[in-house]
């Protein structure tokens, strides 16, 4: 059952081929057997999963099943989950048991899905390799020496290894799309505000957005339909109707106008990645799309702008970890300042401290205008680049990452790690949706094709991704690990 897509599993459950309990047991056994070195889960909630599976089976027997009833999945450990440890990959929250559910979790529960547990991630979602987790790095299922990407590295690896058909992630600068690309699966970052951020541990609030990682665009469409929508508890969630995102999947692509941003095919792009991406674009031409070059002239300012705005927001968001109300607290504090300083020094890892210091510095007196205000002005120019491009074309395409997955331990310098996100980070600054789909390999490491649309164009993106997956079989390739049967 582990080799089936979420859509196939939902159909199997509906047809009575297997129960949710049987499916959940089979996948829990795979997690138990295969996740040791892979390390994609921080917490496995076997008991709660089996209870949820039984409730799903009972609902189906009573004639109350919905499209996702009984379907197993996993949640990045950034989604607050009532009664379950929610660590954000940090020592700071190693003992934190969330007292409430994130809206995404609540919606997935209400839809009858079964969570197998919480997946590994870069601490507080700060990273592009999952090496910044307090709970240790995650292996790439395609190659144990490679990173799975980050920050949703555990979610991507769990799906690629066939431990779950889908997992939820969050994306602040590429944290769904880049690990999806590195692990050879499909990952969607929705428009900012499309999915509620309530109960998602905050990193950078004007950039954070939750979305699904799964094997196919069709699976992502089903999950987005379940999690999207306005939430009064997140004032930035958008009051706008949620369509059934599966409805437009089969629309033909004839006449689709594709733009290739010149800046996404320049210096630093691995020629083998470029080759795979250009071949994928050739597939679109054969499906009736037209292709033209466009320009996003402020592209190379995106990483500098992001590394002002995101750390600034992070330094503010992470001020809440004070050792008083929840989270790690140091032993025997001498006074209140000592309590704050030592609790935070002990609880946060190196990259988190780096970003808190960076953000605090750029927001401090004398630097605010030169850094933060300047970055916000540049952010407007970056967003305008995309709006101008979408006046001319329907979607933009390019690589999700300049290289395939790199080796564990290969990127020690923070700036070189940051530059890895050159093709994903501007999308969060602009707030537009993006999806990464499997589009080939360099050696044994997958390549992701990134497809971008204008605000709220998720249905179109999923349609464009789905049609590619009808014409190619890259998304059906499995690493040897996923082929292992028990």
């Amino acid at each position, binding site marked *: 059952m582990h080799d089936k897509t979420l859509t196939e599993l939902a159909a199997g459950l509906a047809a009575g081929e297997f129960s949710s309990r049987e499916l959940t047991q089979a996948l829990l056994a795979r997690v138990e057997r295969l996740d040791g070195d892979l390390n994609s889960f921080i917490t496995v909630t076997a008991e709660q999963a089996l209870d949820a599976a039984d409730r799903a089976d009972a609902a189906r027997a009573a004639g109350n099943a919905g499209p996702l009833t009984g379907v197993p999945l996993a949640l990045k450990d950034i989604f607050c989950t009532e009664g379950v440890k929610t660590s954000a990959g940090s020592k700071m929250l190693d003992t934190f048991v*969330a*007292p409430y559910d994130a809206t995404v979790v609540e919606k997935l529960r209400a839809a009858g899905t079964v969570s197998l547990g919480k997946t590994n991630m870069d601490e507080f979602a700060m990273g592009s390799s999952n090496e910044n987790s307090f709970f240790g790095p995650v292996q790439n299922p395609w190659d144990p020496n490679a990173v799975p990407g980050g920050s949703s590295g555990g979610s991507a690896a769990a799906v690629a290894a066939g431990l779950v058909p889908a997992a939820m992630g969050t994306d602040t600068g590429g944290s769904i799309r880049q690990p999806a690309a590195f692990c050879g699966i499909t990952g969607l970052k929705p428009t*900012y*505000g499309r999915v509620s951020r309530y109960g998602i541990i905050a990193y950078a609030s*004007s950039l954070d957005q939750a979305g699904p990682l799964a094997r196919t665009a069709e699976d992502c469409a089903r999950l987005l339909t379940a999690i999207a929508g306005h939430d*009064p508890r997140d*004032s*930035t969630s*958008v*009051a706008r109707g949620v369509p059934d995102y599966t409805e437009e999947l089969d629309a033909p692509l004839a006449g689709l106008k594709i733009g290739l941003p010149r800046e996404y095919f320049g210096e630093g792009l691995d020629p083998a990645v470029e080759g795979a991406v250009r071949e994928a674009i050739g597939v679109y031409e054969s499906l009736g799309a037209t292709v033209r070059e466009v320009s996003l002239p402020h592209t*190379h*300012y995106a*990483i*500098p702008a992001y*590394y*002002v705005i995101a750390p600034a927001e992070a*330094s503010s968001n992470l*001020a809440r970890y004070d050792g*008083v*109300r*929840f*989270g*790690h*607290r140091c032993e025997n*504090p*001498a*006074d*209140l*300042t*000592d*309590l704050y*300083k030592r609790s*935070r*020094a*002990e609880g946060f890892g190196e990259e988190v*401290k*780096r970003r*808190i*210091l*960076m953000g*605090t*510095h750029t927001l*401090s007196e004398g630097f605010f205008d030169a850094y933060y*205000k*300047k*970055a*916000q*002005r*540049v*952010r*407007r*120019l970056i*967003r305008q680049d995309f709006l101008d491009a979408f006046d001319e074309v329907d979607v933009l395409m390019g690589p999700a990452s300049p290289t395939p997955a790199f080796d564990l331990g290969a990127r020690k310098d*923070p*700036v070189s790690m*940051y530059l890895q996100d050159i093709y994903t980070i501007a999308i969060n*600054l*602009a*707030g537009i949706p993006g999806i990464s789909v499997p589009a080939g390999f360099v050696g044994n490491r997958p390549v992701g094709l990134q497809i971008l649309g204008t*605000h709220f164009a998720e249905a179109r993106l999923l349609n464009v991704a789905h049609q590619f997956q009808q014409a190619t079989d890259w998304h059906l390739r499995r690493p040897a690990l996923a082929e292992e049967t028990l």
Partner: protein
Amino acid sequence: MALEHADVLRAAHLARLGLDDDEAAHYLDDLGRILAMVDQLQTLDTEGVAPLAHPLETTQRLRADEVTETDQRSRFQRCAPAVEQGLYLVPRVVE
């Protein structure tokens, strides 16, 4: 804008982040390189461009002035490191 050791210590204090001199030296090096990368922004003319705080530029919605939250103190204090009689415990502040 070159960063100095004192700037790192100042930011650490503002952020209430304990940092010894060696750690501050390490972060000085890292932050210096990150700021050098960030300084590319200064080469761009943004005269007349308004800052963008939020990608959709929506305004904050207002809700009715009604009580919607119930008292859940004991539930939320279950994840606190130290509480007593409904109060969060911290080291003595006033002698």
